[in-house]
């Protein structure tokens, strides 16, 4: 897995904000594979294939990174979390559009439900919906922690690099966030 921490994100970010196109490309390349798969998992199966999804994500990342003047890498909120949130909004539009287009052909004969995203198929739609509802009730910071670990698959070191702080600090914060999520889930 390509590491996210070989060059500090913050350094690249400052260069991007100063108008360095090369730094922007490097940031896009850094996040593209992970975010493409993440996005692909959330689009209805028939909507876009992976390379198609990758195009969508790339365009989104370039666009967001080109307007980063208002992003401050401090007070919580990592760049990755910011990009993921921006992408989530793009995906929501995409899902609405794909629903309007209707069913997509050429699906496998027995696919459980063509309209479902790969993630919903893999996790079970009910579980995924419960998870997302519960996640919404957490603070933005805790949501970000959980999305990074659970959805994007970053380990403690990678998260520490993205969020600033130490791996051990990440581990503690993540435990608290997860405990809170479990509490919300078991109440709901």
């Amino acid at each position, binding site marked *: *897995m*390509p590491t996210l921490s070989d060059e500090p994100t913050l350094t690249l970010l400052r260069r991007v904000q100063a108008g360095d196109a090369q730094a922007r490309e490097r940031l896009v390349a850094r996040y593209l*594979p*992970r975010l493409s*798969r*993440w996005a*692909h*998992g959330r689009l209805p*199966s*028939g909507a876009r*294939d*992976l390379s198609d*999804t990758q195009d969508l994500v790339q365009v989104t990342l370039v666009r967001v990174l080109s307007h980063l003047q208002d992003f401050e890498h401090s007070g919580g909120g990592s760049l990755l979390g910011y990009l993921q949130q921006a992408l989530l909004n793009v995906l929501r539009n995409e899902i609405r559009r794909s629903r309007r287009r209707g069913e997509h052909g050429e*699906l*496998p*004969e*027995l*696919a*459980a439900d063509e309209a479902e995203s*790969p*993630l919903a*198929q*893999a*996790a*079970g739609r009910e*579980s*995924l919906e*419960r*998870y997302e509802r519960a996640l919404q009730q957490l603070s933005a910071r805790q949501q970000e922690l959980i999305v990074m*670990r*659970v*959805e*994007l*698959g970053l380990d403690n070191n990678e998260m520490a690099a993205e969020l600033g702080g130490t791996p051990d600090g990440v*581990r503690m914060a*993540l*435990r*608290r966030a*997860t*405990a*809170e*999520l*479990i*509490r919300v*889930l*078991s*109440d709901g």
Partner: protein
Amino acid sequence: MAETDPDVERAIERLLDGSVDGAGAEPSATLLVAHPRELEALRVLTDVAAACRRVQSGTGASPPVLFRWGNIEVREQAAAGASADVYRAYEGTLGIEVALKLHRDGPNSPTARRFLAEAQHLARVRQRNIVGVYGAAVHDGRAGLWCEWIDGRSLAQVLNDSGGFAPVETAYIGIELCNALEALHAAGLLHGDLKPANVLRERGGRIVLVDLGAGGAPQNVNAASSDYGTPAYLPPEVLAGAPRQPAHDLYALGRMLQTLLTGSADAALPAQTPPALRQVLARATATEPQRRYASPRQLRDELGAVLAGGGQRAAPASTPSRRRLVAGAIAVAVLAGFGALWSARMAPQPWRTDVELFRRSGAGIVAVNDGATLSQGDRLVLEIDSSRPLYAYVLNEDAGGALRVLFPLPGLALANPLPAQRRVRLPGSQNARELSWEISSDRQREEFLVVLAAQPIARLDRVTRDAAVPIDSNERGVGRVRAEPPAGIALRGTQLTGILQDIAPLLADDEQVRVRAYHFNDGTGLAR
């Protein structure tokens, strides 16, 4: 923030690490009793995390593509069975890693068609303790199905690496598998090959029933039953040839849980096994079918009572060091079980059979009643009328101990299974000539055993393979004929007696197997 129970904390830790075992299933077992809602919440999160891992799994460097099958990129072979290969693969439409099982025979072969049909059944079963099937199709002349790729280890691997499980873990795994069986049985399916190798523990602790069983789908349920399954986990009546039923999965589960406790299928339970768990396992694996649990729910409830009733106090789990997960978790290919999942016959109509023995003479045929005396030169036929297709076996043994098969025989026009709703006369015909069993009395005693079965009986299939003799060479002795009530069958011939003893467990179910015995002698008073 509310305080979190230490057990929940441990489970969270395990979930976040994505470890296969960590502290094993033990926290889950404790949670099941003390914090069922939290356990349910943990399951939701575990499932979402595992699904995200599957979606993200292609992010890093992946092995080169071996070949493509439809929309699936096949990356590495994970297992090879008798009639199918299993691959780790990437499914482009879903964009996730999958296990792909490709059948070896052509797509129009009966086994391939059955394979696909079973995939359709399985795809309808959605339960978290059963491996999820995504689809099945034919591409490039090969039938295949794809399902979840599960990152984890089989319980057989865990046993092999680390020895037996603690009672509390064992009970927990049993409960999870009861849930799986309940869903399977409700869908009219049975697993048929439950054993530690077919149960996986996914990273995060989810227990998943799969089948890595050898071979493709059997041509049909009946043909499969004689040679599928693992003897150590089959109930005695199945070993004797009884048709497979969903309830047999519960027996297998009981045997499997014993294996988890002891490390081997036959060893005695460890001394620290709680008495309540001993009782549950003894009942699940009772020799007499009617003593066993009737449903997965029943077994699950009793295992739950074991957990609630202090199973936790039993032996400590094995040492933590045994559970270290090797870096780069071993990925286990998961196969949805096509070979082993059979449509079960649930709630059948009562079986109606009518069996009659006739003597054929120049004047026609006359029923041979109980107590009738037969003479040399008489020719016998057996007529069967059944409401269901059936497997008939007619065997004979003379006073000299020679065993002969009268039906089925190679070369006869009639063969098993015999058709339903039609009067069939055995032995039938060969090359358009009508046959009968001719009595040529050269022995003082002859006994006939007629077995009618809803499904083939392996023991008798073996006999008919080994003991079949050419048509026209049969010689029979004769005296009186008398019908024995099935409950009190008594035979003097040692071979027939042995066979009857072997299949005795089957006779308990009158809906599956019916037996008639006929004793003949040559009129010198030696019958019985």
